């Protein structure tokens, strides 16, 4: 007679690891100034609004900027290097956003350099953040392909590559995709930022299709963000544009956050992305403080 041997249960295996670990996404570009920090702040806030528990990590050590995009520069006590070197507890260094309790932020050190955090330290830092129950960790990567890039990508399991629809930025994005693969970060997602629909329509500038075509199948588009003055004003105010219902770029970032969570959201195209010239009716409505959509 067969003796009942309890089969190795799946539940038991799961009880060892946390039942569901969060996602760790590094935001990179290669070329500087294409919108990594803006993207990190905006997607982070949009994910928090959607109910995710989000930690944003500024890995641009020596060139701290994410604090400004988030409007949290006055609340910094400890930074990423303080945590890694054991001078501060992770929990006391993470700054909780007052607008949305789901959002937390770990600033970069401003007076240290890119070698202050090693790839191994980054990995264990990210593991510690996940252990706090965060469902998304977004890492704002420094520009370039040197040590800072290697450190910032070390703890990530997914990557977003930000590019502008412009030759040198796309070229660097292609390079970064190759380097990400070498770090075992496959299936990078692409964001085309600062699109100028009018210039694309008049054949003066590269469009999203051109960028996708030259970069090839290896990168999947996850968002198109138009050039939007509201990004500048929102950065000036320290209020991510994704909180602004009327900003086009804000809407684009909210859509990206939804796509990251697996929702199927159509891409903004052509005329959706163009700032509408206010027509007569719009002006009339504006006069009475009504929005005409």
């Amino acid at each position: 007679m067969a003796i009942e041997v309890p089969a190795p249960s799946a539940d038991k295996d799961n009880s060892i690891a946390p039942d569901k670990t969060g996602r760790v996404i590094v935001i990179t570009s290669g070329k500087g100034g294409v919108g990594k920090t803006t993207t990190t702040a905006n997607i982070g806030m949009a994910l928090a609004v959607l109910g995710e528990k989000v930690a944003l990590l500024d890995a641009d050590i020596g060139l701290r900027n994410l604090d400004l995009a988030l409007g949290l520069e006055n609340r910094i006590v400890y930074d990423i290097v303080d945590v890694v070197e054991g001078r501060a507890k992770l929990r006391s260094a993470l700054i909780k956003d007052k607008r949305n309790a789901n959002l937390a932020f770990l600033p970069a050190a401003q007076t240290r350099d890119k070698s202050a955090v090693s790839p191994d330290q980054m990995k264990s830092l990210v593991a510690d953040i996940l252990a706090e129950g965060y469902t998304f960790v977004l890492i704002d990567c420094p520009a370039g392909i040197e040590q800072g890039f290697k450190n910032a990508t070390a703890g990530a399991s997914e990557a977003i590559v930000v590019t502008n629809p412009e030759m040198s930025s796309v070229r660097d994005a292609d390079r970064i995709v190759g380097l990400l693969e070498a770090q075992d970060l496959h299936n990078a997602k692409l964001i085309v930022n600062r699109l100028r629909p009018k210039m694309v329509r008049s054949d003066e500038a590269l469009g999203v299709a051109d960028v996708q075509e030259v970069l090839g199948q290896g990168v999947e588009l996850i968002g198109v963000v138009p050039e939007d003055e509201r990004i500048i004003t929102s950065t000036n105010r320290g209020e991510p544009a994704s909180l602004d219902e009327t900003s086009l770029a804000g809407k684009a970032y909210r859509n990206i956050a939804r796509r990251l969570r697996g929702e199927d959201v159509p891409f903004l195209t052509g005329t959706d992305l163009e700032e509408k010239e206010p027509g007569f009716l719009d002006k009339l409505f504006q006069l009475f403080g009504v929005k005409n959509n």
Partner: protein
Amino acid sequence: MTIFDRWFGKKEDSAKNVARDRLRMVLQQDRSSIPAPIMEKIRADILAVLCKHLDIDEREFDIAVEREGEAVALTANIPIRRIRPEAA
């Protein structure tokens, strides 16, 4: 290019098309270029294998990446002085 393209300003040599074509070319080069230290190592490794069987003129031995359109190939120029007797 049709006459409609001309009317609607869709030129083959629009800034957008020029940018796309230049980008396509430069990415092809970037992707297929092998870093110099790795080329050196490949050269040394190939030479080591060949020298087991052949008497090679090392100074004239040369490898290079060649491109033709989409295709990329590694070519080698291997001047043989003589075939070592044990190889025959």
